[in-house]
């Protein structure tokens, strides 16, 4: 092991509970080896504190030294001054106490309520300390990555994770997709929830590509028995040689007025047009209104109808143009033979995870329409099932996690109150449905929705507004801000919230090599799967 256990860094010299403590670095520790985001322990007199380095700064014993710098080209003088006249200071925020008192011994790490006393010794956290805080990989914990400069595994408590909605954020190209894939694998591996993934770029179902363009396996290849791939674009799936389980077709009769309301921005509809939709739906009925409206021909009859419904002609034109756009979506049919919602629910009920590929229809209109439409129906069914379960004391439906990309389109302040995703994010925890939100512009998401998210995983962000919105409401925000903006652009993420005891920066675990795949699929399960296949073969000859 190269990592030195309990490497001493320095001593506590000042600080407060609110702002964190200042640590004067020993002259033996080089400030250039210290990185923000690393874990430390502080040996207080009665307790051990666990925390994270959030800032590193340089100190001078006398300001004159800055004005007349000594001749540091002489290594002797440089060595003498390092750590004495010139020294490094670390800003550390202690977050937990580990060991020491009875409560900690019985219940594990506790949140800090005080600060360590003056001149307490500060060490780099050892593997054991980190393990003590984050737990070991087990039935409920999933190894997501390693802390910086350490080999210890950082584990997410997935049972805790799926209880609330969560978010994965980061600039484009920082590894959101890989992180999300890891999270989904974790949920599959630990079977804590079933997933419904609205896969805009078709990269979660069968296979994706990494930055170098190399193919990486996705969920279905790793867990063939647990994942079903649904597609909106059969042709694209066939070309990519993806074996799909179901082709989703949506009928006009499935589209309700609320669905159009959500598309107001993308379809460029006016507020009056959206209101007109409701009137038309009342006139023609919820099932038929699109067909009927699209079937209206220019003429006196239509004019009379519009006058009767007091819809202005320009409003009608605006709406009509919008509906034509929808009609051009090839997966929309006037009538559908099968009900996709029913199919999805069947799969989810069996515990099979569903990935819905959009193929070529990466247009945001299609994505919003389909995701919203399906989620609304599924939400209604879950709600019903849950209420039934409460009433009859039966087992509640499996926890469901719905993954959506480009989340700010669904959850921006203007539409968050109307879309089903806003509702799920705010209250559906009670009905066992939560969201996994993936987005690159978190500032576009309604602050109310952001505040309800249990765990946030964020890769590098460099826009101030985005950073502020992700960190809103968390204690030690300014410290984490400096950590967040200093993340590397690849394979590093800051995780904070319910699923981890303290905010943590991780180097995400490797994904894409044969070795990594082996780790994802539990051995006994892989064998059990093979055994089951063999049994079936024998049974049916």
């Amino acid at each position, binding site marked *: 092991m190269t990592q030195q256990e309990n490497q001493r860094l320095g001593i506590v010299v000042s600080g407060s509970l609110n702002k964190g403590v200042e640590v004067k670095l020993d002259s033996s520790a080089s400030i250039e080896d210290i990185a923000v985001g690393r874990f430390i322990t502080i040996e207080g007199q009665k307790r051990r504190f666990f925390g994270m380095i959030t800032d590193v700064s340089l100190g001078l*014993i*006398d300001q004159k030294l800055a004005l*007349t710098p*000594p001749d540091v080209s002489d290594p*002797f*003088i440089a060595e*003498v001054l390092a*750590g*004495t*006249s010139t020294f490094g200071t670390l800003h550390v925020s202690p977050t937990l106490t580990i060991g020491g008192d009875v409560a900690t011994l019985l219940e594990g790490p506790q949140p800090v309520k005080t600060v360590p006393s003056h001149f307490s010794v500060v060490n780099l956290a050892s593997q054991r300390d980190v393990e003590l805080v984050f737990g070991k990989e087990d039935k409920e914990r999933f190894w997501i990555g390693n802390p910086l400069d350490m080999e210890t595994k950082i584990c997410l408590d997935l049972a805790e994770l799926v209880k609330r909605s969560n978010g994965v954020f980061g600039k484009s190209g920082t590894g959101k997709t890989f992180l999300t894939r890891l999270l989904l694998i974790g949920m599959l591996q630990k079977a804590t929830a079933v997933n419904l993934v609205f896969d805009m770029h078709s990269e979660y179902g069968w296979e994706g590509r990494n930055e170098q363009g190399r193919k990486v396996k996705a969920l279905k290849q790793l867990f063939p028995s647990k994942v079903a791939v649904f597609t909106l674009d059969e042709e694209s799936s066939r070309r990519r040689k993806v074996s799909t389980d179901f082709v989703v077709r949506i009928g006009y009769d499935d589209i309700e007025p609320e669905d159009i309301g959500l598309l107001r921005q993308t379809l460029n509809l006016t507020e009056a047009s959206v209101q007109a939709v409701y009137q038309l739906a009342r006139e023609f009925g919820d099932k038929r209104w699109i067909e009927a409206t699209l079937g209206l021909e220019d003429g006196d009859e239509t004019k009379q109808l519009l006058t009767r419904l007091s819809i202005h002609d320009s409003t009608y034109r605006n709406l009509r143009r919008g509906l034509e756009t929808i009609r051009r979506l090839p997966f929309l049919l006037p009538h559908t033979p099968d009900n996709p919602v029913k199919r999805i629910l069947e799969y989810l009920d069996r515990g099979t995870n569903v990935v819905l590929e959009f193929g070529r229809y990466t247009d945001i209109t299609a994505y919003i329409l389909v995701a919203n439409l399906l989620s609304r129906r599924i939400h209604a069914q879950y709600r019903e099932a849950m209420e039934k379960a409460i009433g009859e004391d039966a087992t509640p439906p499996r926890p469901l996690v719905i993954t959506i990309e480009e989340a700010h389109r669904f959850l921006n302040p203007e539409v968050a109150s109307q879309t089903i995703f806003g509702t799920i994010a705010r209250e559906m925890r009670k009905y066992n449905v939560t969201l996994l939100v993936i987005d690159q512009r978190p500032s576009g998401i309604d602050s109310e929705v952001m505040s309800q998210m249990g765990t946030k995983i964020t890769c590098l962000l460099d826009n101030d507004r985005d950073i502020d919105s992700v960190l809103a409401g968390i204690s030690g925000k300014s410290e984490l801000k400096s950590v967040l903006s200093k993340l590397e652009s690849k394979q590093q993420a800051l995780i904070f919230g319910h699923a981890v005891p303290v905010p943590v920066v991780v180097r995400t675990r490797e994904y894409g090599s044969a070795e990594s795949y082996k780790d994802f699929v539990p051995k006994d399960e892989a064998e059990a799967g093979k055994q089951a296949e063999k049994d079936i073969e024998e049974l049916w000859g």
Partner: protein
Amino acid sequence: MAEMQRVGEVIEASTTGFVAQCYELYQMPPLGSLVKTRDQSAELYGIVYNAATTSLEPGRRPIARGKDEATEEEIYRSSPQLLKLLKSEFGALVVGHRQGDRLYHHLPPQPARIHSFVYLCSPEEVNEFGQSFDFLNLLINSRLPVPTEELVAASLRQMSQAYEDRRGFLVAAGKELAILLSGNLNQLKAILGRIRQ
């Protein structure tokens, strides 16, 4: 313990220092070296801060004698009485003492006694004494006829010879000085300039 080198005898003593006269003319210990003398109960350690060779009688100044001599040695050879009319003395600043087995880096309870013998410390003793830099504080805060930085630098240079890792010793001492002299960077720079390797 190795045979100790006797360098003189105390002729003047106070709590903070003592003056010793050498047995042989010009046989003074080097500036900054560690010397010791015995009291009844304690051994006193001092650092040589000053040395002088003067006439035995204060009123009689030496006069130039070498006009007709070819070399300087010739002067002493032709006037052998000179060696008896001149004396070499050195002053030492008390920087610590030993009582029993324990070494203290602070002033002893009693000053040295007149006519106590003064010895040059062996490298082993210097090594032991240099384990703590508390004596630097005494050196820096004393008022002496020699510039403080010269004395500190000289004593550290001398002491470092007793260490295998001379540089390590000097760096550690430099760090101690950097803290002691945090308010006086010019002095610190002057000392560091004089002890750098």
